[in-house]
């Protein structure tokens, strides 16, 4: 394969592809030169073919769901239906200016309204706002609502947010964004929260606890109702990080577990694309006590038409979270997916996601891998620890991850959660076939055998990827974040 040059290296000064821009430069003589740009910006000058070829080739350098099994724990890398993309990109949806009159956008608004209702149904909550643009923004909105709730009750000192040590990094970070203090509590040896530790930290400063259930340890927090009681009794509220909703969809409701607010990563459970990093959507759902504080805008229904509700309708709202109304295109994709699934399909999601995880877990256990919580049922994901292998052979979780790439599998999540040493957090999702799981077991087994036989060879992985192991330290020390070169000179 020819190495793919940077697009800048393919640029040549003076090349023009004006099919996409006006054929001439319009006059701007009324603008004072002091406001004008003196030097052209650094954009490549390439032909349309070069652009198509470059980005087509670049795309081929990626692993993705559409090309590889991608058992990345906590990320729910399931199949993204192509219909969701095709239909959400119908010209009638793309052409909508966000500030056009509501009367012009009834088709979009009706879909979003329906989506709000569906999200209430799957969470058991009474109010929904679709505006958060990712899980982390949903968390921000949730904690902000909780703070607004306490303040509205004159409860001004509640600024502590309790977070288990296994929590995703966004949880404590979101607490900070809201001006709260994150208080970490430990996990017990069985993977459940340490209730004594929880009892010790709750009190008059407790604003909330943030939990995902099942947790990122891949187990269901069994004493969730007790936790809810403790926190509620102390005056705090419960925040549900819905990143793991895939595990319990149609099996249990966050509202039933005692949560007051939940965000859902539509880009996980509801299968909108990850897009190489985003966009996502972190819709929030709340019970009645938090409803007045939901972020705006929200879709309402008035006189048979759908309308955007704003400050005027929701005076206690925590306010806006985006310039317009959030990631509408992603919301449409989730809506399409939910309509395809329907009620039975949703329960099948959690059922088969859990089946796949437990099967893979059972097979890896019998292949001799160390399961982090062997006495627990796996949820939609589970953890293996390579601590023993590392001790015996020197092969790390990272080595396993890289060797998997050579065998055509994306690596599981490595070194998260932090409390399990040399861990792989494995989430196969419900859309993978058994054969794929069996092949994965075989690959991991082969890699372990290789570790025992020739760890040096293992550490040379990956060998089949477009680049081999990269020097991260160099990347951070000798920062090179933008191209500084010149176009390849003409020869």
């Amino acid at each position, binding site marked *: 394969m020819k190495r793919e040059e940077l697009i800048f290296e393919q640029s040549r000064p003076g090349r023009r592809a004006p099919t996409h821009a006006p054929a001439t430069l319009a006059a701007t003589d009324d603008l004072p030169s002091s406001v004008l740009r003196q030097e052209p910006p650094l954009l490549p000058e390439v032909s349309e073919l070069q652009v198509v070829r470059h980005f087509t080739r670049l795309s081929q350098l990626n692993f993705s769901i559409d090309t590889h099994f991608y058992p990345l724990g906590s990320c729910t890398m399931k199949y993204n239906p192509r219909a969701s993309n095709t239909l959400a990109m119908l010209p009638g949806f793309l052409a909508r200016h966000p500030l056009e009159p509501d009367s*012009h956008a009834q088709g979009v608004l009706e879909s979003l309204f329906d989506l709000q209702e569906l999200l209430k149904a799957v969470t058991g909550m009474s109010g929904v706002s679709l505006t958060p643009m990712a899980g982390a923004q949903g968390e921000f909105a949730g904690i902000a609502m909780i703070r607004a709730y306490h303040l509205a009750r004159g409860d001004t000192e509640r600024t502590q947010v309790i977070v288990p040590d296994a929590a995703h990094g966004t949880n404590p970070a979101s607490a900070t964004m809201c001006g709260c203090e994150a208080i970490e509590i430990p996990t017990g040896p069985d993977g459940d929260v340490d209730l004594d530790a929880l009892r010790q930290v709750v009190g008059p400063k407790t604003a909330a606890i943030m939990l995902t259930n099942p947790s990122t340890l891949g187990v269901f927090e069994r004493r969730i109702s007790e936790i809810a009681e403790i926190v509620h009794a102390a005056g705090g509220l419960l925040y549900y990080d819905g990143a793991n909703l895939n595990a319990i969809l149609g*099996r249990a409701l966050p509202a039933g577990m005692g949560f007051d607010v939940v965000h859902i990563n539509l880009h996980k459970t509801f299968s909108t694309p990850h*897009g190489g990093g985003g*966009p996502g959507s972190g819709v929030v759902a709340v019970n009645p006590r938090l409803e007045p504080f939901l972020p705006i805008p929200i879709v309402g229904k008035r006189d048979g038409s759908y309308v955007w509700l704003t400050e005027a309708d929701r005076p206690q709202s925590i306010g806006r979270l985006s310039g317009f109304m959030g990631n509408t295109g992603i919301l449409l994709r989730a809506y399409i997916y939910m309509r395809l699934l329907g009620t039975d399909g949703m329960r099948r999601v959690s059922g088969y996601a859990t*089946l796949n995880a437990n099967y893979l877990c059972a097979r890896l256990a019998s292949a001799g891998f160390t399961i982090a919580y062997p006495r627990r*049922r796996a949820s939609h994901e589970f953890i293996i620890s390579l601590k023993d292998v590392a001790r015996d052979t020197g092969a790390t979780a990272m080595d396993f991850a890289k060797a998997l790439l050579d065998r055509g599998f994306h690596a599981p999540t490595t070194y998260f959660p932090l409390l399990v040493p040399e861990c792989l957090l494995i989430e196969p999702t419900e859309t993978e076939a058994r054969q794929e799981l069996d092949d994965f077991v075989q690959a991991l087994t082969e890699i372990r055998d290789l570790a025992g036989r020739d760890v040096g060879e293992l550490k040379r992985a990956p060998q089949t990827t477009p680049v081999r192991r990269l020097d991260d330290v160099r990347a951070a020390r000798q920062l090179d974040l933008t191209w500084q070169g010149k176009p390849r000179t003409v020869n």
Partner: protein
Amino acid sequence: MPFIPHTDDDLAVMLQTIGVADIDTLFDEIPAALRISSLPGVPPGLSEAAVTRLMRKRAAQNTDSLCFLGAGAYEHHIPAAVWELAARGEFYSAYTPYQAEASQGTLQLIYEYQSMLAGLVDMDVSNASLYDGATAFAEACLMAVRASRSNSRRVLVARYLHPLWRKAAETLLKGQTVELVELPAVDGHTDPDALTKLDGQDFAAVCLPWPNFLGGLEPVDTLTDWAHSRNMLVIGVCNPVALGLLKPPGKWGARGADIACGEGQPLGIPLASGGPYFGFMACRQALVRQMPGRIVGQTLDIEGRRGFTLTLQAREQHIRRSKATSNICTNQGLMVTAATIHMSLLGSEGLRRVAAQCHANTRSLVGALTSLDGVELRFAPYFHEAVLKLPRPVAPLLAELAAAGILGGYDLGADFPELGQAVLVCATELRTAEDIAAYRHALAGALGMAAAA
């Protein structure tokens, strides 16, 4: 079973391997009282054909118009290649590029994006995107407060910055008690002569929209120098298409702005009811460790070949947790993919022509509409939006235009009462002479005038 590949046979073998009788048993750790057996609020599943029909109907229930509305979202031409490429499965269905060796496509693309974006705003470094323009603006304020040598948690902001962005920023800044303070304004922009009113007060930064919400051009050079002389950081809040023509923040005043941010939508992203769009952010090298969001760096592999990887991750929530520069994790990667392709297709000359054409078309529009009695241009110069004074209340006029298939602009009355009966109009490069004539004709009708030119 939509999307579920398991046969009955698979199911049987798998349950046996696990050692359970059925799938429901796998949920036995959920306390019985919490378990539910159905989702009554969710309708039965539909076939793809049925959903296709439904969504086509929904798409058709919207009403298309001739768009002279900007106000933060702009209808530009998007080359067909942009989304045909961006929607390729390998981009569309990949995760965040944590496994660098398996993600060189996305990583190289982001590095190219960072280079383009930094060049466009004339800053040293760029991140890999934030949610949208409004949140990028809010994050820039937070970043400035962190980075500033002053202890102030107050940030100055031009009056004519997007009112919705300001509201969103207020939501996002409130928890961290960062406060936005308005600069004095006159004639549709910040009043440099009234800055003395702020003497003796301490601010972390000043935020300058470019162009501002009214389409006008702020006195950025003066304000940048003034801010720097008072140890404030300068944040340029820019429209990226305008930067094809206008002086980039890196060149404002003697030293240039410190941070640039804005809404990426004009770079190849469809209007799509407000999102997904993406926020961009760039800054001077010295500030990079305060920047939120992901950053890609170039490095070498063990064979000495060039490769790309996420870097400076110690700023981020997955490493630094509650002390991270931001809580952002998932960003707007696919939009950045589209924007990078879009910018590559335009090139610098293409972007300049688009910008110039937007400006020229808006001038034509202003000319056409102000030829009607009582319609007056309020401020000049402007880039691709302009404020027109109307002889009658704006809202009913806009409603009448909308009914005639024309989005006539943004009613400025509620946000900026000092402007009176004023509408913000916009004509991008896509508006033809015919379109402009149609607007003039409809407005003349709504105003009860003959439309003769």
